[in-house]
């Protein structure tokens, strides 16, 4: 039989063992910290590089770059406002179209669809989210644009009722020859819908079944359970998903460039809500103008355009995070 002394020894032995595990622990934590610091450094480095390389333009153009809307190598006028508003407008259209579809599809997949149908559809949606954007762009050029031109733009421009309806008459108008804000917005919507749907579905599935049971136990219908229990619980995550989708639409270059027409609207301030007019986004402007840009101020201005995109994305992300946090707090508090 062990005496009390024996026991206390074995206890203190077990208390001091495992020092080399501690060592491994610090290596592990050190590695993780280094990697995450590397990521932050990278983001910072990109920001600094953009700032550095656009310095000549910033110095020469000043705040006029943010407010101006002309971009002309001949006159040396460079302003980003028209591109920025084009970016916001096309992404805004995409979100407006995509969000209802995405959230409804996610609800269908997570809550309503029979089991056997869920997996194949989920698989398809994830597949859609993985299609390269140039493929979407090609489809836009060969299918979406002709369709919009023949079936939407031409009839709408000819219709006298639309011409008299207050809001519609300024929206459903424009050049109407195909490549347009409408095409870009819709194409972006098609591109981000699978992405937002997939994330929203995962978020809904993460809401504990017990919550639904508890609601059902009170005699709520399935629709009431979804509306009053599941969606409020999921709201912060859903907002985050939508914002991620917005971020994608915001920075999307290839597909947009292929269908938007790449032209600043011909209005005094370079802005237009007319959906049938061609437009320009920051990303598509950069992609289009880089090949022709002469070294010097023209190139620096393009890089400053990148800086504007970078900063705006940051701001949107920051805003999205605050929204998510706010919604989460409202639910937790």
């Amino acid at each position, binding site marked *: 039989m062990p005496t009390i002394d024996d026991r206390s020894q074995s206890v203190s032995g077990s208390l001091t063992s495992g020092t080399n595990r501690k060592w491994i622990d610090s290596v592990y934590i050190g590695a993780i910290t280094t990697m995450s610091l590397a990521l932050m450094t990278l983001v910072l480095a990109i920001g600094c590089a953009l700032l550095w390389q656009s310095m000549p333009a910033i110095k020469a153009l000043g705040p006029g770059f943010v407010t101006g809307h002309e971009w002309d190598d001949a006159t040396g006028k460079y302003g980003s406002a028209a591109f920025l508003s084009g970016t916001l407008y096309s992404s805004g259209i995409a979100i407006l179209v995509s969000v209802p579809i995405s959230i409804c599809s996610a609800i269908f997949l997570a809550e309503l669809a029979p089991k056997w149908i869920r997996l194949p559809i989920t698989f398809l949606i994830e597949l859609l989210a993985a299609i390269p954007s140039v493929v979407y762009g090609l489809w836009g050029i060969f299918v979406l644009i002709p369709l919009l031109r023949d079936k939407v733009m031409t009839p709408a421009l000819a219709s006298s009722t639309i011409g008299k309806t207050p809001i519609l008459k300024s929206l459903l108008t424009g050049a109407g020859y195909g490549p347009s804000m409408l095409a870009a917005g819709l194409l972006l919507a098609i591109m981000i819908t699978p992405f937002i749907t997939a994330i929203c579905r995962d978020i809904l599935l993460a809401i504990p079944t017990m919550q639904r049971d508890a609601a059902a136990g009170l*005699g*709520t219908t399935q629709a009431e359970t979804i509306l009053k229990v599941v969606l409020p619980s999921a709201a912060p995550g859903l907002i985050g998903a939508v914002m991620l989708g917005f971020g994608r639409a915001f920075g999307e270059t290839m597909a947009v460039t292929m269908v938007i027409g790449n032209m600043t609207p011909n209005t005094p301030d370079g802005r237009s809500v007319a959906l049938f007019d061609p437009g320009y986004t920051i990303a598509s402007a950069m992609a289009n103008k880089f090949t022709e840009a002469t070294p010097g101020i023209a190139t620096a201005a393009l890089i400053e355009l990148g800086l504007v995109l970078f900063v705006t994305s940051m701001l949107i992300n920051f805003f999205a995070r605050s929204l998510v946090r706010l919604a989460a707090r409202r639910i937790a508090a």
Partner: protein
Amino acid sequence: MQTTPCVTVQNVSFWYGSNQALFDINMTIPQHAVTAFIGPSGCGKSTFLRCLNRMNDRIDGSKMTGKIELSGQDIRDRSVSVEALRRTVGMVFQKPVPFPMSIYDNVAFGPRTHQLARGRALDELVEKCLIDAALWDEVKDKLKSSAMALSGGQQQRLCIARTLSVSPDVILMDEPCSALDPNSTHRIEELITRLKNEYTVIIVTHNLQQAKRISDMTGFFLRGELVEFGSSETVFGTPARKETDDYINGRFG
């Protein structure tokens, strides 16, 4: 004791897929009394309880045969709406599941959904349910704060208040005290004893002392069968079956 039948169960069997969980259950549960179900883990107590408000309908591939009547009405009849049934037969789950909203909103959730009350009347209803669930004094100053910040025992009493809020006739409780400290347990037992004046209470418990203390009727389940059902006095005092005797005297299970 007076025994107006409240729930009558005839030849109920239940399957999860091809796996039979209940075998030919028969019983008559009296009104305004506490009925307790005991038995070893996995014997089908929760499954049976969930049959009573058709909560099992929500499980894919499950199947039930037999008949369950609530005050003479077949609960699986075409004319019965499952929402109305679940409102009449309320349920308190083993784990407290408050909704992620305020304490007030948790209790007001059911009445709002069923449009039972609004404004002042809703405030009063919420207060009454919280008083009945012995929670009012602890939360009356923070009704607007999140239910998630309550302790486990408080959350469970909140869930009881939430169940009371839609004025059910029958309350099903699946091990409501399993996560609670002795003090909270005591308060919930008191509450159950009080509730039986107005409600029919059916409770699953692993705590035999508790079953003995609070229940009028006791049913002993074993491997999906109802081995014995009778007044708690008989079941705990002079059980008819050897299995029951073994179980309540801790000889197995």
